[in-house]
């Protein structure tokens, strides 16, 4: 029993603060270096990369936000799909999207290659903004206005899937985003998200 090696089940007598073997030291050093790479990537992407979830974040009263969204939709409405306005604001402007059980309002129409300030908020509970099929995901929290600078890189007819449980009708909460190209037509490069029925602009 009185050997120098022991298992993790044995109490350790005397001083156990001994130098580690070279192999162990090498692995710890490699692991540490890799951790530094992992750490550096995130700030680095803020300077050199194009996808950062930082945005502008502020508290907002849901009623105020809703009023702002309604005014925005009224001002820039270009068409309608089943009662929901299709809204196209000039590039560079603020566009508003609101989530409420169980729908997204309004339908946004954006131009490819142009930057917009996309505002996201909820009127009631947590929702999840998941842009399909691009797979861009953001959490939507009531009482908070999340404003992201977005530039669509491809045109098409996109969907917004709610991916945060918001009640029993959660799975019916699907919205729509249309991205048109310079000629004003959505390019059909998005075959998986086509309109089920109704008018296509």
């Amino acid at each position: 029993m009185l050997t120098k090696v022991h298992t993790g089940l044995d109490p350790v007598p005397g001083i156990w603060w001994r130098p580690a073997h070279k192999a162990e030291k090498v692995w710890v050093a490699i692991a540490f270096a890799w951790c530094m790479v992992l750490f550096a990537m995130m700030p680095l992407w803020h300077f050199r990369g194009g996808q950062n979830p930082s945005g502008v974040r502020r508290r907002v009263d849901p009623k105020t936000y809703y009023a702002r969204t309604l005014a925005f939709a009224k001002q820039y409405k270009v068409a309608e799909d089943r009662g929901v306005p299709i809204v196209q604001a000039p590039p560079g402007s603020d566009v508003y999207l609101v989530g409420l059980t169980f729908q997204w309002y309004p339908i946004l129409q954006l131009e490819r290659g142009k930057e917009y300030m996309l505002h996201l908020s909820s009127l009631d509970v947590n929702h999840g903004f998941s842009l399909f099929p691009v797979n861009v995901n953001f959490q939507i929290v009531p009482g908070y206005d999340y404003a992201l600078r977005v530039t669509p890189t491809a045109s098409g007819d996109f969907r917004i899937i709610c991916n945060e449980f918001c009640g029993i009708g959660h799975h019916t909460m699907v919205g729509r985003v249309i991205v048109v190209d310079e000629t004003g037509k959505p390019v059909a490069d998005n075959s998986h998200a086509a309109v089920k029925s109704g008018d296509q602009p």
Partner: protein
Amino acid sequence: MSALSVSVSRTCPATGRTIHLSAERLIKVNAVVAVVSLLVGTIAALLLVLTRWQAVHLLPAVWYYRLLGVHGMNMLIFFIIYFEMAVLWFASTVLLNARPAAPRFGWFNFGLMLLGTLIVEWAQWSGRADVLFTSYPPLKAHPLFYLGVIFFAVGALLVTCQFFATLVIAKREKTYVGSVPLVVYGAVTAAIIAVITLVHGAMVYVPTFLWSVGLIPEVDPQLYRLLWWALGHSSQQINVAAMVAIWYMLGALTVGSVVLNEKVSRSAFVLYIMFISMASAHHLLVDPGFSSAWKIVNTSYFMYMAVLASMVHGFTVPAGMELGMRLRGYNDGLFGWLRHAPWGDPGFSSLVLSVVVFGFVGGITGVTLGTEQINIIAHNTLRIPGHFHSTVVSGTALAFMGATYYLLPLIFRKKVAFWKLAKIQPYLFAGGLLLLVMGMTFAGSFGVPRRHWDISFSQAPYDVQFNPAVDLFLAMMGIGGIIAVTGALSFIAIAVVSVFFGKPVGDMPRGPDIVGIPPGLTNPPVHVANVDELNEALHAPSRGIFGATPGTLVLVGVFLVAFILYYFANWKLLTFLWKIG
């Protein structure tokens, strides 16, 4: 020790340690309730996986969301924490030969936890708490649901205090010499993280309870998410620490693992204590409430120090196994120690599968998904449950199952029932989960959301048609889930039949293989007679950088390459997105 202590304790036939019967009973009840919770969670799992597999789509929406809540609470909270309570009692009493502090109070706390559990089950099954596991306000549940969680958390917190008290007793009564064993040190780590976690639980559930009964007007949804995840994610970090402690324990019991260097392994546990609780920020990476600087600091556990800790354990655990095997004479080649390992010992196969799946799948995906920007393509998709089923389930739950195969003869003094099934159970469970996890991860990469009843969107205003490959991945998830559930039910059947109808162990004669007793107990891993000499030789400087554990260095090298490839592949994927800032 006087004659008095003879009547309240016994000597473990395998390890020669003193087992106090009052502690043994507490270990037993916690383990039994843990297994019952596992059963409830497993039945829910089967129904859920058969619903998410869109081709089957079994449950109606209401029951899908309801059982999702049941599954989360039973698996992530009840099963795991009851088992951890058993581990805390085991580590502080059996491993240190100590008597438990205030065993009667232990029963009171157990009762409190049980009361909380029953209330939560009632609220969930009766449809009064359809708020899923996370219960984000302003979604509201019946007030008793929150109260049940509070009872449970307070009970667990008090047991953790008793664990510390037992350590003090052991120290004062000198039941062991020197420093506590590494396994106990790991349990201490888990207990410290548990205190941090459970205090956050109180911070979040007490105001939410008051809100639910109308005493305070609202709970800030963002603040709730922050505090809730300090409970929700940190509770999984208790598991990580407990799981690593069990890795060291199973290594010692099955192959005579040695601790390469106490300093290194213990420092890694200290890193867990200091940094791992910051991981809760991983859930808030695409939330509006926090700045990028805050997200980067927290999700990196302040410079990935907790990842470093896991990578250290990821080396020292297999290296300890390798050195242990070499010191037993299995010294041939790079991987001779693996070839001669007891693969038919469910304790050992659980250990290896737990380490491999947790490290290669859970660890790598976890760090990647928890990167501030990469989270944009993963948040709330099926990739997330894909990740945590490879950590909490394939890692923690499997390690707990492996430990159970040793606890049955040691604590319950019963032979393991259905021994042949027990030998394949870890492979069944881990294999099924691996399929499930891959199915979920790939489906999530195509944008399939988590916690979602119907991805055919049959009642939605606009159609969403996923890539046809998604059907294949969901089938993979479904089949994997069925296999994993079979593995879990096998474990439950083995545990229940062993405990209540098992053959008593009696003497544990050394040497022969006995049906129902893990080989680590009848053929304990004994090091060669000249163990110190051999150890010295293996560590000789002439063996170079690869030293005593060359096989492990090769394995961790493979791990690192896999990690780097997966990590940067995800950055590459990210660049295909819209510009977002």
